């Protein structure tokens, strides 16, 4: 057996043993709850989801609020990032300044940003400003990285064909950078779904309302419902945007299968 294989096997075995041990311990702890509590207060009551008439409407409303905030902020963020990236590509000295500033915005904890902005703005504006500021670093960086990564040969070919600077950007650089740009938009979107959850502290609704509500009332069904709904929303948006990436870059499927 080669060393390579041994190393892999040992690592996987250790990870597996650790995982199983943790699982056994966790299940052991949870089953220590006395039977009465489990019976009267189960972790999840399916009746809440299927037998309660108001649940579907409320869930839909919360999802709509969540999506609205996400989409608005990512859209504004994408437009602003495109402008910033264009400026960076035109004036190279801006690069350091813009990335340092965007990095600074990214470091500010979301809870803090919501809390401060809400003292000066309406809740909705505050949330959109905060959420947008978090998308800037991710999307701008990806646009610039994508366009930087366009092979010199493609640029030379475009110049050789007599394209103007604008034509070259539109027909060669942006399409070739598209996979990286779309990845940026996807990562930003998924990040924002999580951050909208935190914007619940400024009473804007959204799926995380269930989480906080459930926690406050120690009603586990509501909390679990919120958690599952939010994770599902994030995962499905991620998959959806991955689909868009594939559709938008048909050539990428042939060349690099990764």
């Amino acid at each position, binding site marked *: 057996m080669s060393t390579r294989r041994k190393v892999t096997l040992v690592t996987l075995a250790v990870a597996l043993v650790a995982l199983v041990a943790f699982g056994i311990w966790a299940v052991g702890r949870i089953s220590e709850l006395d039977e009465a509590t489990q019976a009267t207060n189960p972790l999840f009551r399916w009746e809440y989801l299927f037998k309660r008439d108001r649940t579907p409407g409320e869930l839909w409303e919360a999802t709509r609020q969540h999506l609205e905030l996400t989409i608005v902020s990512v859209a504004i963020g994408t437009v602003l990032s495109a402008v910033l990236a264009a400026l960076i590509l035109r004036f190279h000295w801006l690069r350091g300044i813009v990335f340092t500033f965007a990095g600074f915005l990214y470091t500010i904890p979301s809870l803090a940003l919501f809390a401060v902005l809400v003292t000066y703005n309406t809740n909705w504006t505050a949330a959109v400003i905060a959420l947008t500021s978090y998308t800037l670093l991710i999307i701008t960086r990806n646009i610039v*990285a994508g366009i930087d990564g366009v092979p010199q040969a493609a640029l030379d070919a475009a110049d050789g064909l007599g394209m103007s600077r604008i034509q070259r950007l539109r027909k060669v650089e942006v399409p070739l950078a598209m996979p990286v740009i779309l990845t940026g938009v996807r990562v930003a979107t998924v990040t924002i779904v*999580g951050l909208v959850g935190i914007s619940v502290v400024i009473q804007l609704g959204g799926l995380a309302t269930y989480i906080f509500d459930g926690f406050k009332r120690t009603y586990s069904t509501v909390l679990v419902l919120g958690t599952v709904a939010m994770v599902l929303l994030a995962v499905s948006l991620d998959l959806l945007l991955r689909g868009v990436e594939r559709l938008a870059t048909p050539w990428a499927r042939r060349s690099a299968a990764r």
Partner: protein
Amino acid sequence: MSAAALLAQASDPTNLWQWLSTSEERTVTGDIPSQVWVTLWHSVLAFVVAAAIAIPLAAFLAHARRAEVASTWIVNLGRVIPTVTIVGLLALISLRNGFGFEPWPIVIALILLALPPLYANTYTAVRDALPEAVGAARAMGLTEMQILRRVELPLATPLILAASRVALTQVVATEALAALFGGSGLGRYITFGLANRDTFEVQAGAVLVAGLAMTVDLLFWFVTRFIVPKPLRPAPASRHAVQRIKPTQSITIPINSLGGTP
């Protein structure tokens, strides 16, 4: 406005600085130094555990060129799941089982937050370590473990440290979420301030949380400058790195490490 409200207002601090410098009314939220300490303790514990799991595992697997697709999937899934949901769920489970509000829910959630960037970047860095150097080491008769320890890991240091810095900063910033679920830490000032409509307390909390995150970020950056092996010091943007690593990874903060979901 009622007399009681006027009285309450009179004794309230009139600006942010006054709030920060008068400490006698912080009976519920605790004093600032102890909350800073709690925040740091939670964050560092979570970060160390995450690094101890992610870095060796990723280094071994990347050296063996194993589990590439599986890692990508797991890392992506880990990045998609919002931390708020994890803290909430864990806090509930912890309460139901008599563990209380703290510290496990927030620490486990922070570990899960730090794992994906650390793992993904270590994997990429070790996998993309200069193949010529690795080949040369193998030709000189180094064993596989020696190659990993003496060649690949040192070459990967800049990227791993850059990722660690982002992960640690995110962890410190996200620790504030503990306060939303009854835990302690600097987020308390924000949640209590919002609940009591105390603008200065909210602002003070925000300034403290952001300040701590940035201080940790700067400190880590400073330490990084000394840990990175000398020839690699011009950071990930050294000439080799730019040419070798995919264009998406040539910028100072590795792209892989962004987009954890707080």
